[in-house]
């Protein structure tokens, strides 16, 4: 178990180092002089030189990288060109909004996908199974931003049931906050729902055909007991992993969802940063997103190994 953890943590650290290299090189690949970008187009040569000195842009690239990583580890990702605010602070203000949205999206997804997936596995090859499969396929194929626009058209423009867009902080007005979160959470959760539904169905079908389930049935247990006490516990383990792997898609989806529903979160921040060519902000946001993805998946793997002893044993023998 300890071996597995150590191995997994080392791999995560290596991944984080490679991520930092990619992000650092990526920003250096942007055509043009970074000093000119920071100073604006009307800067004179002296001003440019001053900026180069200040940010150490004349140093060798390795020195620049190490300094950047050193600062990043201590939580300093530089400051936004546009607002002169620290990148970490800007992200810290936006992140809770996106986390609320993502949290609701996951809740929506779990609430729909797990019952539907289990039901479809139990009623395999019936009309219900077909229906769940069809819904899941549509969920994977539907572009979330179009779904968002159509929901606005129906629920806000036509029926006036929900506000079309905007954001109210939860502590200011909890009800308005929730009202404005319904559509974005559903839109962001739609793709996740579809993926989880499929995964739940497949893994439940596999578990239901296992020997121990047959044993449970043959010793006379009621179908309900077998399902809830024996099958679901094991059937949902792979779902946890998929949920972890889907976090990246969720973060990407937040970019579009926040854009459509004008939610001032992390995703909107990225798009704004790209459009205003605010490179330190883009760099910081991408670095934070990728790192948190690595950390989330480390946690998922650890929790998975706690849930599933087979992984622990395999990990200990050093197999991939």
């Amino acid at each position, binding site marked *: 178990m300890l071996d597995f953890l150590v191995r997994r943590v080392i791999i995560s650290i290596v991944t984080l180092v490679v991520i930092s290299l*990619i992000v650092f090189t990526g920003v250096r690949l*942007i055509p043009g002089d970074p000093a000119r970008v920071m100073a604006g187009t009307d800067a004179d040569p002296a001003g440019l030189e001053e900026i180069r000195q200040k940010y150490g842009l004349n140093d060798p690239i390795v020195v620049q990288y190490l300094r950047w990583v050193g600062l990043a580890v201590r939580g300093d990702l530089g400051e936004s060109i546009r607002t002169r605010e620290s990148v970490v602070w800007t992200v810290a203000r936006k992140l809770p909004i996106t986390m609320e949205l993502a949290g609701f999206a996951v809740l929506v997804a779990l609430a729909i996908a797990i019952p539907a997936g289990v039901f479809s596995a139990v009623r395999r090859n019936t009309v219900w199974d077909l229906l769940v499969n069809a819904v899941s396929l549509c969920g*994977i194929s539907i572009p979330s931003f179009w779904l968002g626009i159509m929901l606005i058209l129906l629920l806000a423009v036509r029926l006036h049931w929900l506000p079309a867009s905007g954001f109210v902080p939860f502590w200011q007005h909890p009800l308005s906050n929730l009202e404005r979160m319904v559509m974005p959470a559903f839109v962001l959760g739609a793709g996740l729902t579809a993926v989880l539904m499929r995964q739940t169905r497949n893994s439940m079908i596999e578990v239901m055909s296992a020997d121990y389930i047959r044993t449970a049935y043959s010793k006379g247990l009621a179908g309900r007991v077998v399902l809830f006490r024996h099958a679901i516990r094991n059937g949902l383990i792979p779902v946890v992993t998929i949920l972890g792997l889907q976090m990246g898609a969720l*973060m990407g989806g937040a970019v579009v969802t926040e854009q459509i529903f004008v939610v001032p979160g992390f995703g909107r921040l990225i798009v704004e940063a790209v459009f205003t060519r605010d490179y330190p902000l883009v760099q910081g946001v*991408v670095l934070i997103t*990728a790192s948190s*993805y690595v950390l989330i998946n480390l946690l998922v793997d650890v929790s998975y190994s706690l849930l599933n002893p087979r992984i622990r044993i395999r990990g200990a023998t050093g197999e991939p």
Partner: protein
Amino acid sequence: MSPDGPASAAEVFAEPVTASPSTGLRRGWRRALRRPPAVAGAVVVLVFSALAIGAPWIAIAEPLKTDWSLIRKPPTWAHPFGTDDLGRDSFSRVVWGTRISMQAGVFAILLAIAIGVPIGLVAGYYRGAVDQVIMRLTDAWLSFPFLILAIGLVTILGPSLTNATVAIGLGATPTYIRLTRGLVLSTKEEDFVQGARALGAGDLRVMGRHILPNIWSALVVQATVSIPGAIIAEAILSFLGLGVQPPSPSWGTMLNAAQQFLETAPWMAWWPGLAIFCLALSFNLAGDGLRDLLDPRDY
């Protein structure tokens, strides 16, 4: 067999040889027919391909021509999908948009295959340090959420259709590296590969002639199911203003424009989105069918 006169011996002997590919095809076709949704999906994909190729003949109205007298008109016989905020014919723009979306989706995945498959082959075949380095890079690359990676790359490269395609392709590459590597790892241990190696085949020959043909079907299936993702990604980038630039007709940019006129011209939002949905759904249906067709064990 010749219709007139008795069959010659040569013809009789030749028949099984010539017949076998057609029976193979027929068997495949019969198996495909057992899955009507997959066939329907494939047909719709073909229809969209025809639209993409035949856009100049199908969309008669000029997709870029603005007409101030026709601003935001609801669907009519002359303009079946209505007109947009600049009086352009939405039907023409959706048809021309097919070309852009198909192009972006297919080329992005081709790029991902062209880069990912050779790298995956090398990683899986040689293992050791090369494999470790490649896999750590792949892990890191996969840690960037697909869309955020694409946005980052477009920031570096600048917004355009080509750059969006490249960004989506690079974003999808690690999937192919991983998939190829995994397939190579299992295929490498098969007897026929060991046999080829024992007969003195070099690494390149073993990879190219023995391993690749055996993993190809899995890669094709993966490509079919990842094209819809690439098409949606292109639409998203264009929607955000990071892909195709106006006035070019792309489904994403059309939806972006439509968003401002939801109350007055909702039809502007219907068609481009419906087109993306139909195309993505058909690719997914066709891909599912193809998977069953090529690998019955998997089902």
